[in-house]
């Protein structure tokens, strides 16, 4: 069930330059959220809501966590909400990642602001998940402590080598696969990265799920604006990121 409401911001902090981390108290939503789902967040003075992945869920505390970057005026407005004030969200939205049974191994790959949705899914695998995260530079690195708290193995890459390995997450993925093949790969980040990950997963015969982005209006599947090209049984057709996704079987995504 979709829920819409104004909920209290229980925690708020900046975790990197222009990247904010808010914890929202909304037990009804927290109770139903699955890893990979997202929220439609209202920005006062702006007509459309902003889709933000649900980074982490705490069912006991009844909270969800949203980690987002200020990209334009809307996310800037949301970032100005103070702890204790209300944020208007619709959640949980979209298809979640497939969670395999206990004991299976996963690699979770996050590029830049595509990292947040990896926290909750990596948590499901604990020490059986390896999280590869890539950022431009050391000062953009986020969420590594959270992955460690999950018990995940972490591999950090930066484009400029100022933190972790210098290089792309796809290189790190290839090296990992050379060592050991997981049962599933999850990825979220720029289209170029997802394309690379999809290809590597296919070459290695590993099932892979990617989380896509598209501009949205309703966020629930009614307006059909958030289109992406997908393919099934050789037939190409339009899917909608908000309802058919954001998580897709990577083989079904048409990368242009």
């Amino acid at each position, binding site marked *: *069930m*979709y829920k*819409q409401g104004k909920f209290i911001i229980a925690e708020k902090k900046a975790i990197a330059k222009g990247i904010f981390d808010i914890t929202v108290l909304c037990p009804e939503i927290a109770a139903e959220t699955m890893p990979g789902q997202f929220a439609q967040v*209202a920005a006062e003075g*702006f*007509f*459309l*809501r902003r889709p933000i992945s649900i980074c982490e869920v705490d069912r006991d505390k009844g909270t969800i966590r949203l980690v987002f970057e200020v990209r334009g005026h*809307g996310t800037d407005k949301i970032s100005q909400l103070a702890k204790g004030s209300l944020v208007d969200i*619709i959640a949980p939205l979209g298809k979640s990642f497939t969670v395999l049974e206990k004991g299976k191994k996963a690699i979770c790959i996050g590029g830049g602001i595509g990292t947040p949705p990896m926290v909750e899914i990596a948590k499901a695998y604990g020490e059986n998940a390896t999280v590869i995260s890539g950022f431009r530079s050391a000062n953009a690195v986020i969420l590594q402590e959270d992955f460690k708290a999950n018990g995940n193995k972490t591999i950090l890459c930066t484009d400029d080598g100022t933190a972790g390995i210098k290089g792309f997450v796809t290189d790190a993925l290839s090296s990992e696969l050379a060592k050991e093949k997981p049962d599933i790969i999850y990825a979220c980040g720029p289209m170029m990265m997802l394309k690379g990950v999809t290809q590597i997963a296919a070459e290695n015969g590993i099932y892979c799920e990617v989380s896509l982005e*598209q*501009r*949205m*209006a*309703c*966020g*629930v*599947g*009614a*307006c*059909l*604006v*958030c*289109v*992406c*090209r997908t393919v099934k049984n050789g037939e190409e*057709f*339009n899917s909608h990121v908000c*309802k058919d996704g954001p998580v897709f079987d990577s083989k079904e995504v048409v990368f242009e």
Partner: protein
Amino acid sequence: MNRLSVNFCGVQFKNPVIPASGTFGYGREYEQFYPLSRLGGISVKGTTLNRREGNPGPRVAETPSGMLNSVGLQNGGVKKFLEYEMPNLVTKDTRIIANIAGATVEECAELASMLEGSAVDLIELNISCPNVKAGGAAFGTDCTVAGQVTRAVKDATTKPLMVKLSPNVTSITDIAKSVEANGADAVSLINTLLGMRIDIKTGRPILKNNVGGLSGPAVFPVAVRMVWQVANAVKIPVMGMGGVATWEDAVEIMMAGASAVQVGAAIFNDPYTPIKIIDGLEKYCIDNNIDNISQIVGTVKPW
């Protein structure tokens, strides 16, 4: 007392608040928020003869107090609508408005005839979609063509026919009179205004279709003006829409001449918008001792 029930060209609606075509799908998603039986009716997504994939994305751009869309009538085609959506919709205890769009006059007529025998309550002929190459706005911006397609559809159906008008015209009253003269039982307006946004970082239009249809509160004053002009120019009832977001907006557009109201883009901002409008209208009637909301229709007193 049923203060909100309205008779709209022979069809009885429990209240005059109807989600607008293309903004509510077939109700399946919004049913998760509230029962569809609360609504006066639903104007379903534009339906074409064959399945349409619509335009490539991005299909949406935000604008001040509004948005552009360039969906381009993506839908599963009329057969899928009849076989998959109608059986579900008929169980919802609300009026069903089928929004149809053909690429040719013949297609429009064929679409209408295919709805014969269905439980559709009202046909809304969309001659104003700005996002398709054939039909759409090409029909809705020329009096003669608008009249022809109306006549063809009217002849093909026994259901009440409402024609949806484009605001992208010099004189919407001329178009309205032409469709009235050719058998339309009602008109609905406004469809979206043609607009464009450019991403200045990339130098590219935000919409892959370059241009798209503007809707939301930004267009409300244009909608009120056009509803007022059309209501004063024709005798058939007007279904008003364009930027309605609050019950006050609904009262305003009804005073301008709308017998019922469609609510579109505002639903994206707040899914409960139609329900809030219904509740607001109910309270408005009680507070102002209005027996039935129809009494306010067209009551604006021009200076």
